């Protein structure tokens, strides 16, 4: 019972961090992914300078290990939320790590749309915006949803790391009780809760994908 009480608050904190960061990742990452795809060579809004600039930013962010990103972003986080530790502060580095990740996954999903279908839409006089809204997104929706699922699961892992650096949540709990006070049972329960969260997210994600692609 005591252990359950101990687990509830960090679990809520983890979910709060993960889902807020997911919202940012989706809101910024998906449009960025679309931009990367449509501005590439031979695509509907080819614009290589824009493509190179955003592509480079995404690559740079993705090549920085998360633990280093956490430290690098401290001044920026402080500027944004007024402090560098705590759950809300952790959302900043989590989002910044997740946006480029989500962008690449979205880009990959959109690339899987058959070029012939895009060509067909063009032959009917569709504008680039119409092609994005009515062709690219609906056609790749199952892959995009899978991408969101993967992003959320990644964020669960990252959030534990952020937590360990003083960000709250389950990672924080595991480090403070499990590691520093040698309470291995708490460490174990933390892991179990994390596993359950990941399983649930995956199951929900798979279910949604299945629903969308039922008839395809």
């Amino acid at each position, binding site marked *: 019972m005591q252990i359950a009480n101990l687990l509830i608050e960090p679990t809520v904190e983890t979910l709060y961090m993960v889902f807020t960061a997911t919202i940012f990742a989706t809101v910024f990452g998906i449009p960025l992914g679309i931009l990367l795809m449509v501005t590439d060579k031979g695509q509907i809004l080819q614009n290589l300078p824009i493509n190179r600039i955003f592509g480079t930013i995404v690559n740079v962010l993705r090549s920085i290990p998360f633990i280093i990103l956490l430290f690098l972003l401290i001044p920026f986080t402080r500027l944004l939320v007024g402090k560098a530790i705590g759950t809300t502060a952790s959302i900043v580095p989590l989002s910044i790590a997740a946006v480029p990740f989500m962008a690449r996954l979205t880009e990959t999903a959109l690339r899987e749309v*058959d070029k*012939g*279908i895009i*060509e*067909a*839409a*063009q*032959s*009917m*006089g*569709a*504008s680039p915006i*119409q092609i994005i809204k*009515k*062709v690219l997104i*609906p*056609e790749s*929706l199952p892959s995009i949803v899978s991408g969101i699922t993967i992003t959320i699961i990644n964020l669960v892992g990252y959030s534990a790391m952020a937590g360990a650096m003083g960000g709250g949540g389950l990672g924080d709990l595991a480090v403070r009780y499990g590691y520093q006070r040698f309470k291995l049972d708490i460490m174990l329960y933390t892991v179990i809760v994390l596993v359950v969260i990941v399983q649930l997210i995956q199951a929900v994600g798979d279910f949604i994908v299945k629903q969308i692609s039922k*008839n*395809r």
Partner: protein
Amino acid sequence: MIYIEELTKIYPSKYGDVKALDGINIHVKKNDIFGVIGLSGAGKSTLLKCINMLETPTSGSITIDGIEMTTLTPGELKETRKKIGMIFQHFNLLSSRSVRGNIAFPLEIDGVDKKRIDKRVDELLSLVGLTDKAQSFPSQLSGGQKQRVGIARALANNPKVLLCDEATSALDPQTTLSILDLLRDINKKLGITIVLITHDMNVIKQICQNVAVIDNSKVVEQGSILEIFSNPKTKTARDFIKSVSFSEIPDELQKKIDKLELDSSEGIVIKIGFVGKITAKPIISTLVKKFDVDANILYGNIDYIQDTPFGTLIIELKGNNGRTGKALEYLEELGVSVDVIRGSEHMEHH
């Protein structure tokens, strides 16, 4: 209706430029079903895509109904494309939409309101015979049904022109015929000009009125289908015709004819090609009776191109004292095409 002039398309590449189209000149008349045939890589798809500017020509001009396509602004091009339908070898349907949704797509693009879309889609579904499949998804349809959806979708905005890129190449022969029937119906009923490209001469033979043969990025022959079938000028055209008709001499037979011992110095082997009504006349018996020659039929066939009978006959004529020569003159007067394929060395006066 469609005038293509000096159309050239070059694809630049690291390993040297690819000239996919080289000085193409084609004229498609209104209400025509115009076929473009060529081997793989000849440039057919590129040509079709240049017509609606999916590919930008390197040089040359394309006018459709008086509109010069190559100089349109992006906005004008979008509007013009709505009046040019296109169907594809692999159908290119949206897997995320039902049959109804796919046919509605071009109407949505055009900003038509929901009610009118529903009405128009119903009309189109019945036109292509898919009313009962309205709620199905592409993955649940056969190839022929998918192409019907493609056709309905292409017709949604009442186009004046329909471009078909290998529209039947992914279908079995029977389904191909039913799709070709549908295209012919559309051409007749709706007065839509159709340009279709294919590597299958059978498709051309079934529905085209005029044809261009394209080889190595160039148009090597162009004319009415009967002209091309009865008098092919290039090897490419002859090879295509051989694939669907026996009007061209099979190689085996050609070898036999070459070796044939001719009867006398006046013996000849001739190839007669007929088109249309003449096939109904008893040419050979007239020849034998009137000129007292012996006619030995080596090969013969009668074929139909759409509704026109079309035949080839190879006969050996035996006779002397100038009788074979006279017989030949008579045939030429009849207006059938005659080729002396053996013994011409003795026929200088012809």
